[in-house]
């Protein structure tokens, strides 16, 4: 129940941020990936099952607002959310640079899975944006690590 409420709130927040950033990001549209950052963060905070479910919902939402095969982003984000939940429980990602590396590896993996699926099933050219799309995992990782650190500090202060 608690996971559902948190998931709903996170989904609304991610979607509002997406709506806000999308028209503002100009030519760097493909670099900003709000949903991957949200899924990895949710998985890291709430665990593998909520992470996978949240990834599936976010992925289907992304696909609903894109022409092409419905379900492609869902597959990669489901796996991303699940792995974020599993790995974050097995290693220590409390330090900022550890979490940055953790999010970088996962966002790169999610990006690679999505790119592969688009090439195999979607048969649609990637929005390269002059190569800037390759910066997506790094931008996503930095955003996720900063937010993770911020929320973790807030929680620590609140618990005291």
């Amino acid at each position, binding site marked *: 129940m608690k996971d559902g409420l948190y998931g709903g709130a996170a989904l609304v927040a991610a*979607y*509002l941020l997406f709506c*806000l950033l999308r028209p503002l990001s100009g030519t760097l549209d493909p670099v900003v990936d709000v*949903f991957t950052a949200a899924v990895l963060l949710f998985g890291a905070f709430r665990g*593998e099952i909520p992470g996978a479910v949240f990834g599936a919902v976010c992925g289907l939402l992304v696909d*609903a607002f894109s022409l092409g095969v419905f*379900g492609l982003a869902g597959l990669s984000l*489901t796996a991303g959310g699940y792995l974020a939940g599993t790995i974050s429980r097995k290693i220590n990602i409390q330090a900022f640079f550890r979490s940055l590396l953790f999010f970088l590896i996962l966002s790169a993996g999610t990006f690679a899975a999505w790119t592969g699926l*688009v090439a195999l099933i979607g048969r649609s050219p990637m929005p390269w944006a002059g190569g800037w799309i390759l910066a997506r995992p790094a931008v996503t990782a930095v955003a996720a690590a900063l937010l993770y650190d911020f929320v973790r500090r807030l929680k620590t202060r609140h618990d005291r």
Partner: protein
Amino acid sequence: MPRFLKEHRKGLALAGLMSLQALILSFQVPMGQDASFLERTAFAVFSPVQSGVRSVFRGIGRIWSRYVHLRGVEDRNRESLDEILRLRLENSVLREGLGRLENREEAAAFLGSLEKAFILAEVVGIDAVNPHKSIVINRGASHGLQNQMPVVDSQGRLVGRIVPPLGPKEATVQLITDNLSSVGVEGVEHPVPGMLNGDPGSGTCRLAYVPASDVSLVEGETLVTNGFDGIFPEGLPAGTIISVRTDGSLFKKIAVRPVFNVRRPAVVAVLTGSKGEGG
């Protein structure tokens, strides 16, 4: 709960979710079918949020200009701009239509039909994966929009067409830069017909099926719709040729830069009167 399920609960949940997504993917075979119920539902539920977010920020931005700075001027300016846009589009449709009419009665009937010729809409969203594939506008089925209706920008230049999912208040527009888009076009100076296909990787288009033996189409030539596709009316500016080359195949490789500009939120017009007329 059986022990096996208990022990492998997490793995089974992941497998279930992945299978669900694979099932959704399999429903879309063959490609080209209408949007699924789930896709239409997600679009219908969340698309008003885009309009809402845009309205909120537009409203905040207007507070200064509307109530503090130059009260009333902004309103009049906006009305004038809308009127200019309407007249420009009307002029474009008139010129295109009148050119095809042969007598006074036909002209009178055509002018009477102009009232319902187009619907103005604002761009409220851009494709979530690739900005060169589609946009979302704040007019939908309840405003009379239907699939396949052509969409032009404020200068009357071709933007794309309405495709599923079509919501009651919002609609998806497939841009001519989408790889699944095909538009029948020809040159203004040299009316050689071809098919304009999108290339969302670069945000440009390709002109296909122009024989390698043709020497008339060159860089800088403007392409307009020819109506052969049965979707887009003839005479809409679609793009400009940026390169022409041959590689030994039957057809030329022609790159085209689209003439529309919807990179920033803008007003577009849906040509409701021209659906299905196509030439």
